């Protein structure tokens, strides 16, 4: 029995369909991340699980029970909101107790749960303060605490880190990961930040254009993107796409300038056109290889990113060592790791080399 | 049996239902029956005959009514600009958190707590040319008294002065609250750019509170079109009708002449004017500010 089972869910706002026939399951204790660009419907999906949006058609089950017709409070879920949504006029303690009081939990039980959550999150010191007196990070912990005390079957996080500054975000991310190990509950995280998704999730659900694009472990998503969208969305800097012609069973790709690569990809179907997908780490500056002109150099310390243009005008991003001496305008040669290349057909579908 | 959704919506409606009931019962229904009444020749003490649009025809050829319409527009023109500008100046002067500012905020708001009967009582004594406060002051400088209430060319101005004095508290408060919303860093940026206070005012402060300015203007228009108590209690609309606004006309026709069908017709015209003017302003400002 899966912890969460979403079956053929569709949602439209008036004439605009935002989610079309979505199905998804999550196992108990699994950490799932909904990843996608803003406006892709990932938040809507989360809110449908929470009961904050209605389901037009399809069903949602939690722990085997159908919940899409239940009130939000009856679904056994807890949510951490993007802007925390703490009740400003209540103390932190009252904030955390509010939901429990509403379902008539006993006073001693409430105190016990709040005490425990406060200890875990190290917020005991300001239980009697009001949210307005707290910093952003502290509010974040309280928001999580308010979810924890409810002992939900599923935790829902709506972009919980987007309001924090970079340093705090990193720390909170770590804490979230630790918390996750401690709580042993199913968690769903909505994010547009791939790092967050990659570092926290067991599985990532990439959503775009009303549909789930791919469901997989972080490494599957990165290494074997199901389609051109996933390939381009995940990974930073994004994957290079080069128009190629393809021939042979073990596909041989040819660039417009005639350079030929032998990939490790087999069993390709027919397609009108092909694109070669190359992550920048697989395009390296070298003495030989495809020649290109450097347009911009981004020095990151441990490595250097080279934004260059091939002779036919195609933009390409390559990697060089941290101490690269290249400058704008330099002519370089790029060596390409064809074994790591991906191919995408005219419909954007991805084909990858069999991995060992 | 209602569906769950219908039940929820019915429950939702219950929140607005009490007000909607009172609104429909005490405002819409009287307005509607007033519209109906305007088609009758009707007496305050019963008896009505249907006359169609005759009352409206009568109004459009009634010089007293037309004069009242003119007076009302004149009053709004005299009164709304100062009520938009003076409170703004006060708010700009008082937009600081010192004790002095708090004291003066209280001073300028104090007139707003008085009722119209008292405001008129006070101002009649202030402006009356014989022994009034202003006349006493003018006398000190050897100046003749000003006929505030007896010169048809001045009387509406006098009404406007009284009204501005009485009503400037609320707009001032609205402006103050708007000014407090303007982020301080904009001012700091402007100061760094060596912006002069005038530039700061016109390029930064005013644009930041433009929505409040619009709100104040529309609110004051709606309010001041309903001018009634001041002339009713001071001049009874004189001299020669120069201070009779539409509402006073309605009141006289309805309660003094008991011609309530005719009064109802005039009420509808006033309602239409207020509606058109406010809607017009709203649309105009919306277009200009690009639906901010």
């Amino acid at each position, binding site marked *: 029995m899966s912890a969460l089972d979403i079956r053929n869910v569709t949602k439209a706002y008036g004439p605009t369909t935002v989610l079309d026939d979505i199905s998804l399951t999550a196992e108990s204790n699994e950490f799932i991340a909904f990843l996608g660009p803003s406006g892709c419907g990932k938040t809507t999906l989360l809110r449908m699980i929470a009961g904050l949006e209605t389901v037009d058609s399809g069903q949602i089950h939690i722990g085997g029970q159908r919940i899409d017709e239940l009130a939000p409070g009856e679904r056994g879920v807890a949510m951490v909101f993007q802007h925390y949504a703490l009740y400003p006029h209540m103390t932190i303690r009252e904030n955390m107790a509010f939901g429990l009081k509403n379902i008539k939990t006993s006073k001693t039980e409430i105190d016990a749960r709040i005490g425990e959550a406060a200890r875990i999150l190290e917020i005991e010191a300001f239980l009697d303060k009001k949210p307005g007196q707290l910093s952003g990070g502290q509010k974040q912990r309280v928001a999580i605490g308010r979810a924890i005390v409810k002992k939900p079957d599923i935790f829902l996080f709506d972009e919980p880190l987007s309001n924090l500054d970079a340093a705090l975000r990193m720390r909170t991310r770590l804490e979230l990961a630790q918390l996750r190990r401690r709580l042993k509950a199913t968690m769903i995280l909505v994010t547009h930040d791939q790092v967050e998704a990659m570092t926290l999730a067991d599985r990532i659900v990439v959503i775009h254009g009303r549909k789930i694009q791919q469901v997989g472990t972080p490494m599957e998503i990165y290494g074997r993107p199901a389609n051109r969208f996933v390939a381009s969305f995940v990974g930073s800097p994004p994957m290079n796409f080069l128009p190629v012609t393809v021939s042979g069973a073990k596909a041989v790709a040819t660039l417009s300038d005639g350079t030929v690569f032998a990939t490790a990809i087999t069993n390709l179907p027919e397609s009108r056109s092909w694109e070669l997908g190359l992550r920048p780490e697989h395009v390296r500056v070298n003495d030989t290889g495809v020649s290109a002109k450097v347009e911009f150099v981004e020095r990151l310390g441990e490595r250097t990113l080279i934004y260059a243009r091939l002779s036919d005008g195609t933009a390409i991003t390559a990697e060089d060592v941290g101490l690269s001496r290249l400058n704008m305008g330099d002519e370089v040669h790029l060596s390409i790791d064809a074994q790591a290349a991906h191919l995408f057909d005219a419909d954007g579908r991805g084909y990858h080399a069999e991995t060992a | 049996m209602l569906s769950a959704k219908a039940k929820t919506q019915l429950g939702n409606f219950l929140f607005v239902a009490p007000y909607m009931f009172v609104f429909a019962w005490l405002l819409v229904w009287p307005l509607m029956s007033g519209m109906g009444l305007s088609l009758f020749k009707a007496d305050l003490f019963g008896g009505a005959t249907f006359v169609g649009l005759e009352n409206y025809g009568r109004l459009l050829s009634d010089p007293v009514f037309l004069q009242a319409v003119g007076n009302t527009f004149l009053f709004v023109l005299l009164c709304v600009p100062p009520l938009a500008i003076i409170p703004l100046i006060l708010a700009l002067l008082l937009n600081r958190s010192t004790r002095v500012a708090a004291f003066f905020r209280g001073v300028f708001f104090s007139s707003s707590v008085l*009722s119209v009967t008292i405001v008129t009582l006070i101002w009649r004594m202030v402006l009356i040319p014989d022994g009034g406060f202003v006349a006493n002051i003018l006398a000190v400088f050897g100046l003749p008294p000003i006929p505030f209430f007896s010169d048809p060319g001045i009387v509406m101005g006098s009404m406007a002065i009284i009204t501005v004095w009485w009503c400037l508290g609320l707009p001032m*408060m609205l402006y103050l609250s708007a000014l407090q919303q303007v982020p301080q860093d904009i001012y700091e940026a402007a100061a760094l750019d060596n912006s002069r206070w005038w530039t700061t005012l016109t390029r930064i402060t005013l644009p930041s509170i433009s929505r409040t300015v619009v709100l104040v203007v529309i609110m004051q228009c709606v309010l001041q079109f309903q001018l009634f108590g001041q002339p009713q209690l001071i001049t009874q609309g004189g001299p020669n009708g120069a201070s009779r606004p539409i509402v006073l006309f309605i009141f006289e026709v*309805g309660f003094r002449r008991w011609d309530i069908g005719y009064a109802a017709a005039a009420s509808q015209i006033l309602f239409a004017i207020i509606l058109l003017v406010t809607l017009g302003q709203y649309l105009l400002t919306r277009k200009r500010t690009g639906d901010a």
Partner: protein
Amino acid sequence: MSHSRNQKWREVGVLISLIVLGLIMVSPLIWTVMLSLKSNGELLRSTANAFNPPYTGENYAAIMANSGVFRWLLNSAFVSTLQTLGVLILSSLAGYGFARLEFPFRNQLFLIVLFGLAIPEQAVIITRHQMFADLHLHNTYPGLILPGLAAPFGVFLMTQYFKAIPKELDEAAMLDSASRFKIFWKVLLPLTLPAQATLGIFTFLASWNDYWWPLISATRADMFTLTVGIASSQINFAQTSGLGYLMTQAVFASLPILIVYIIFQKYIVRAVAGAAVR
């Protein structure tokens, strides 16, 4: 250096202009108070000596001797308080409904309420008077209290204010198993306190100062409100000696509300300033 000197001069200028404007603002009020403390006989001859003694309390004694005045004070307080409570309750409920809940014709209904802002009181007063006569509501407290409850301004203000509260709070409360009413009552309503204060103050002021409706609805002396009652005791033509007494009436009728205002001034100003937009 020259910059800070400029600053200082500007401060002085602001202060001086405030004092001048403030004097213009309050001088009619002060003058009225002074006149109310003058004997009628003296005012008969001249009003020019309002700022010089002697002063007397005889006009206040005369008002206090009026048997009806405390009854009227009580009536005004009762009517204004209940009307204010009524407006706060109705406007808050409706404001929450319009801002947050879904039901058929919601936007159309709200638009109609907005149109209501343009309905002049005098346009409905006659038909409403007839309606209340049929219902035998004249000379009753409901008859005095009810009309004020229909004013759309409160609904408009509260709707705007509820809309400004982040919707996440409602949603958090929903997930906390709170009912619609509980969300309204426990979560959102406490956050609208500044708006409640503003609306409350303005409703109370308007109700306390209302003249025309009480004049034609409460026509029995024991149902008069303070404004109507005091106006009724105005001694007319034969009495030339009434100026000080008139001014005393003005002061007396505004005194309760001025006292309330002075006590709560700080809070009122803050509430009003905090409410309009947030």
